[in-house]
């Protein structure tokens, strides 16, 4: 394997990285801990490492590229759709393997995230991706992270083969409703996607039971928001269903982003990026804080989350009768609902209060969100006097957010 990177390959890398950047998933966590040992290369630590951050604040953890950005499909939101005029390129299996190994050796990355436009046939495309993973593992003893974005239309046996080598397989749902899919991704079929997810779930569960290796870090998906008129509530409803039915590890939300060569059926203006982070916060409440979609949605208006404040605060402001909660006696479930208190802070509070009656300054040492939590809390030295009735509470707990550089104004 050569120790240099020629100009042609460099140019391809730019094109095929650019083409992959709209995929939100990048996590390299969840793989079983392992190491390549004396002759192999690489390890996974279980947690994943971000090796750099780009100026959009997102982390670079994996070499995230497309095998090719040629595509026979014509999904409106996608820069790689067949009717777009972007520059095209195509990696060989060996080229992807070489880039992954050489980047990995220099400690640039945790592994590979490989996706692809669909060329020739879904099976052909899936097979090439599978061959990359297989070559990395078998020929190079590569023990780093591998995530393959599977093609839902590919044959089940190919996906099964891919699961032998990859840490995670994912299938992008892309759009939360069948109707939007039909309009914006005419060749895609929601039923096919969901069937593939169902099969994947079954395979993963079986393999776990039989202690075989098959996509040990589970499956995930991505949903694009803002390219259609689906409400946040409907998006979250769809996610809740996905977690439940297909045992997904994560649903990634990707605010539809302006792309070069936009299609005519797209909205002219992309949604505010804040929408994406509110969805992630809501998703988090869904998975870790025992909130229901209905509760979260009730914090906003007309099925849309409040862009100005986080969904937990929004919920609290609409349920003031539940507060204040006493830090020294309140139950865990109630403390978890206090804006500004994360699960870790709540655990630390519960641990600390066995030793003393907590005052506000103690809470400040246990949580970084005290300023927001204050009006909702009772402590040994603090009782918010009818603060929860104040009309200006919202303004009180939110500081004027420094305006993010507005590019769409």
């Amino acid at each position, binding site marked *: 394997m050569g120790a240099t990177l020629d100009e042609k390959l460099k140019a391809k890398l730019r094109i095929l990285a650019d083409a992959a950047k709209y995929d939100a998933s990048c996590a390299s966590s969840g793989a079983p801990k392992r190491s390549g040992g004396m002759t192999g290369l690489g390890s996974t630590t279980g947690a994943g490492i971000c090796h750099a951050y780009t100026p959009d604040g997102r982390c670079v953890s994996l070499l995230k590229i497309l095998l090719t950005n040629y595509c026979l499909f014509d999904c409106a939101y996608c820069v790689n759709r067949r009717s777009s005029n972007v520059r095209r390129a195509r990696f060989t299996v060996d080229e992807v393997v070489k880039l992954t190994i050489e980047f990995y050796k220099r400690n640039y990355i945790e592994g590979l995230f490989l996706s692809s436009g669909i060329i020739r*046939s879904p099976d052909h495309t899936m097979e090439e991706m599978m061959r990359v993973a297989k070559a990395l593992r078998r020929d190079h003893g590569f023990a780093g992270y591998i995530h393959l974005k599977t093609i839902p239309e590919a044959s089940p*046996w190919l996906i099964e083969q891919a699961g*032998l080598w990859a840490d995670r397989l994912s299938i992008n749902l892309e759009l939360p409703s069948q109707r939007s899919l039909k309009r914006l991704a005419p060749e895609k079929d929601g039923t096919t996607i969901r069937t593939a997810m169902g099969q994947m779930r079954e395979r993963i569960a079986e393999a776990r039971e039989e202690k075989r290796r098959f996509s040990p870090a589970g499956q995930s998906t991505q949903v694009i928001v803002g390219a259609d008129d689906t409400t946040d509530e409907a998006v979250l409803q769809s996610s809740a269903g996905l977690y439940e039915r297909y045992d997904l590890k994560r649903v990634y939300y990707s605010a539809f982003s302006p792309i070069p060569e936009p299609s005519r059926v797209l909205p002219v203006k992309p949604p505010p990026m804040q929408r994406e982070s509110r969805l992630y916060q809501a998703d988090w409440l869904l998975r870790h804080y025992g909130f229901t979609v209905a509760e979260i949605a009730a914090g906003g208006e007309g099925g849309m989350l409040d862009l100005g404040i986080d969904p937990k605060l929004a919920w609290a402001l609409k349920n003031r009768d539940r507060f204040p909660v006493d830090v020294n006696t309140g139950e865990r479930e109630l403390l978890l609902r206090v804006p500004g208190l994360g699960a870790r802070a709540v655990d630390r509070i519960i641990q600390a209060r066995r030793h003393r009656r907590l005052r506000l300054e103690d809470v400040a*040492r246990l949580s970084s969100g005290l300023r927001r939590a204050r009006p909702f809390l009772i402590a040994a030295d603090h009782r918010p006097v009818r603060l929860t009735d104040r009309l200006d509470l919202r303004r009180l707990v939110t500081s004027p957010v420094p305006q993010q550089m507005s590019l769409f104004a």
Partner: protein
Amino acid sequence: MTGHRVQLDEGADPSGFRLAVRRLLAAAVPPDEVAWTIGRGSDLFGSDLPEEAPPVPLPRALHQLVEPVVCHSDPERYALLYTLTWRVRHGEPALLQDPSDPLVHRLERMRKAIRRDVHKMHAFLRFRRTEDPNGAERFVAWFEPEHHILDAAAPFFVDRFRSMAWSILTPSGSRHWDGRSLLRGPPATRADAPEGDAFEAGWRGYYESVFNPARVNPGVMRGEMPKKYWRNMPEAQAIPHLIRSAPARVRDMLEQEAAMPAKRNPDKAVASMFDQEPRTLEELNRIIAASEPLVPGATRAVLGEGPIGAAIALVGEQPGDQEDLQGHPFVGPAGQLLDQVMTEAAVDRGRVYITNAVKHFKFEQRGKRRIHQKPTAGEVKHYRWWLMRELDFVRPELTVALGVTALLALAGKALPIGKNRGEMMFEDRPGFVTVHPSYLLRLPDEAAKRQAYDAYLADFRRMRRMVERIEAASA
């Protein structure tokens, strides 16, 4: 006033600290009578302390705090740790369990800072490739940690890059890995590290390309990747330009007219690409043969054999040792028994297709022997897709499950043989259920064998009659 001065090594000196703690505690010296200084050598000055002192039992949580905190660059670290130790020993044994105590909180934060610094070193260190005169490659990195964490961070690199030779150089020391052991080296300077690397430009190009200018948010980036690390990260050189050019790039994108598709609408190509199913048995077999075995063991896939349009398809469990070596199904003792029973039952051997539910021999190597392992339900299901396609191509009049694994594959669920022996529909395929021939071979006594063989023969005669019936009906 201060009665004792403790001198510890530069950097992290956990053993010097532990020794000092032992001696101080043995002489009951309270924290405010100790001055901790950092220089060369572990020494206690102005003291009449014992030279040696027995180890003191301390809570585990305290050890777990000392280990990282001694790596901190705060000169007060030892004083704080000793104060904590003193308090734990003098009336506050549960002190560490109260995260709201100010001292515990401060040390906790120091521990966190160390963890973060170690993590950042794991993340932001960049190797450059060098070659020694013999052409052997070594990867060398220059890194400037904030705390004394070189030893805390090194095991990660050993684990990850065990098969490579590498060096990590820092201003306070270096570590060198040769594939077997980790050697300590002296402090280094940036000039000791190589200048560049052949993959750096490509990496920078990658980094630039993954940035989406429509989402520029440098605050978040700086929070996660503080500027102090940028100097040694080749990709970070691109940051200022990426930020500066972002608004213009987005404006360009938004102003761009929705472009007319450049290509003709490839409806045909799209339609034909869904048509990817194998079209013939040979095509299917090629896929099976090229696929990775899903079961451990297996040298090759053993494919079905027999004519298309066979009267009977016999489906067994999986190839065995002999079949795996020869590449044909049912060539071992079980196959011979099948031949015999078919001959006696007057089943035309030339009109039988014979295959297995699982296409690979699953075994466990024990010494020289390869011990057959029963496939799991998940494995059977995986191979089921292939079996069903295969039967679609062969189109037998009658499909026969030989044994419980074949029955699982054909029925799609686990069913016992005993109750189901005889005719059965497999979805819309006329089918028949009987035992696997190796069941007969395993029976211990002759009488039982004889009896089982007669029953088996009766089964095959019934199959023949079923086929005749089906053929008569369709004729």
